[in-house]
């Protein structure tokens, strides 16, 4: 009884499998059965078998491996059997998918309780667990859109989006170059640099700091994105106007965070620097800037997302015929929804990559900070 309670996901999956058995077949009657008896038996054997094994308690790595392989293999059989019969899945199909999902959940739960001694193993787990979660979002998306035959316009299945990405690499690359390499990078660098310089100035001149900081805080809460049409009007349709929007959007977070960071060095350390007779710039470079680094990187991280958003939204107001925002707004008009999703996927990957680079740079620079030392 205790075992069943421990693996309630397994118990539920088992019940769902039984319900699926009762409500067979997997596809509606008018589909010339694509699931052979052998495949069907294999799917059920995999799911029920894994559910039963989840009640026993073999060594954790073995259990995790079985829980990982079983449901995913079954899901793969289920989805690949769907090819050509979109929208014809029955209740049994979805019950089996749900059972597999519960088993995968159990797998994640087992993995979360593991504490590998090796450092590499821990990193692997930290990557694997979110990866399973992400994969299941895609699997459910694929199974529901194709199984229930949701119209392509509403929500294309991930496989179609993937095919579209593979099929139009050239267009996507041109868009990325226009939006990311020209507008975002230029705007990001100029915006962050000018925010930083003004922050140093404000640090030098107390009056400026007292006046600028409340205004900066206030502006951070404003919908700055609204200046996009004005910038397009001033700087034309090409990437310069997008870069201008990005500069304005990234300036204030950088300013506010850097000023806050420059105040982070402790009074004791500053006194020590004074007793060394170091002047303002020496104190700044050797003590206060390193102490401000966590704040500055916080701003850089916030800005990495803001910059992408600024550039893409600014393109809604007018662009040359290339660019991610342009592609999104025109392909929607032409109802090429898969292209829109492809563009979003690319934006997501670029955004995560951008963020990742900043995060890595942060680790390299602020290795001394408590949040990075681990433990």
């Amino acid at each position, binding site marked *: 009884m205790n075992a069943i309670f421990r693996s309630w996901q397994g118990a539920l999956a088992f019940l769902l499998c039984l319900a699926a058995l009762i409500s067979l077949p997997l596809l509606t009657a008018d589909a010339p059965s694509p699931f052979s008896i052998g495949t069907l038996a294999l799917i059920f054997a995999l799911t029920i078998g894994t559910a039963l094994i989840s009640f026993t308690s073999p060594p954790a790595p073995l259990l995790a491996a079985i829980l990982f392989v079983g449901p995913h293999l079954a899901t793969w059989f289920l989805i690949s059997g769907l090819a050509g019969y979109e929208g014809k899945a029955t209740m049994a199909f979805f019950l089996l998918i749900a059972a597999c999902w519960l088993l995968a959940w159990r797998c994640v739960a087992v993995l979360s309780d593991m504490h590998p001694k090796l450092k590499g193993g821990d990193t692997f787990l930290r990557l694997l667990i979110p990866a*399973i979660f992400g994969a299941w979002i895609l699997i459910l998306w694929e199974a529901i859109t194709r199984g229930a035959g949701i119209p392509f316009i509403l929500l294309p299945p991930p496989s179609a989006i993937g095919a579209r990405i593979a099929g139009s690499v050239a267009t996507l690359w041109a868009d990325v170059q226009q939006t990311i390499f020209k507008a975002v990078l230029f705007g990001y660098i100029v915006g962050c640099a000018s925010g930083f310089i003004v922050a140093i100035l404000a640090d030098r001149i107390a009056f400026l700091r*007292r006046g600028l900081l409340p205004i900066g805080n206030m502006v951070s809460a*404003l*919908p700055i*994105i*609204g200046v996009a049409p004005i910038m397009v009007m*001033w700087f034309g349709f090409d990437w310069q106007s997008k870069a201008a929007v990005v500069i304005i959007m990234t300036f204030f977070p950088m300013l506010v965070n850097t000023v806050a960071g420059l105040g982070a060095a402790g009074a004791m350390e500053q006194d020590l620097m004074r007793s060394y007779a170091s002047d303002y710039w020496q104190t700044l470079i050797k003590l206060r800037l390193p102490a401000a680094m966590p704040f500055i990187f916080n701003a850089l991280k916030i800005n990495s997302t803001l910059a992408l958003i600024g550039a893409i939204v600014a393109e809604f107001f007018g662009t040359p015929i290339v660019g*991610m925002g342009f592609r999104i707004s025109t392909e929607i008009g032409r109802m090429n*929804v898969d292209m829109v*999703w492809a563009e979003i996927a690319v934006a997501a990957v670029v955004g995560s990559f951008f963020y990742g680079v900043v995060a890595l740079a942060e680790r390299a620079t602020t290795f001394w900070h408590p949040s990075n030392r681990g433990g």
Partner: protein
Amino acid sequence: MQQERLLQHRILPVVTILFIIVAVWYVAAVFMNTPFQRDLDRRGNVTSTPMDFIERTLSQPKPVLPAPHQVASNVFENTFLRRVTSNRSLVYHSWVTLSSTAVGFTLGTLLGILIAVGIVHVKALDRSLMPWIIASQTVPILAIAPMVIVVLAAVNVTGLIPKALISTYLSFFPVAVGMVKGLRSPELIQLDLMCTYHASAAQTFWKLRVPASIPFLFTSMKVAIAASLVGAIVGELPTGAVAGIGSKLLAGSYYSQTIDIWAALIAGSVLAAILVTIVGVVAKIVDLAMGGRPA
């Protein structure tokens, strides 16, 4: 004495900087509008003194950069002098944006709290969901704003809800992250005390974790409400929404009504300031009601 300090250290610098901004704005307006005005004068064969010329650069109907007083008078006119039901009234447009902001913010806050409670209590969720929540914010969510609206329009969901959903998407993140931090903020020693009282998980949650998380909740709600306003405005941009601050911006950019664009921007900013202030005031009231002492 203290009032004097407040005046010298707080108000004076801010006012000075604001004054400088307005002055720079005027100068910039004169310079940016000059080429067009010179062109206009040459065609109309008007010769004028420099003073006259400057005055006319500051009163063009469609200037490159409208002067502050033009924007101010436009805002005043469209806010106070029009009936609030008129579709030129800024109050009307702000109301439309405000309503979707409010719905989106409410949904986003609830969703964020729900996710945070899940993450704090279910270990599998903590390890699998948290990285994705952070990753979801590296995605330029606003890029899917037009997508969401078109998709929902295809299933006959139009009007308030699609915009509110975008606001929800933008506002759940700060709340979720802040609440996870807040719900975990009780220290081990306090949790141990609850343990010695033989408190159940639910009791620990309601009597220790929730009160400890309230300051975090309000801090993140301030960020979230600003984010959901941005979401609502961008949600009005793409598919020709008929009303709202975003549609006002778009219409202004189509017809080069620069003064209208600036007026809409001001309206959005005022709205943002009011919303953030409201959250701040509520935070203070709740803090006092919970027995917080003024710092």
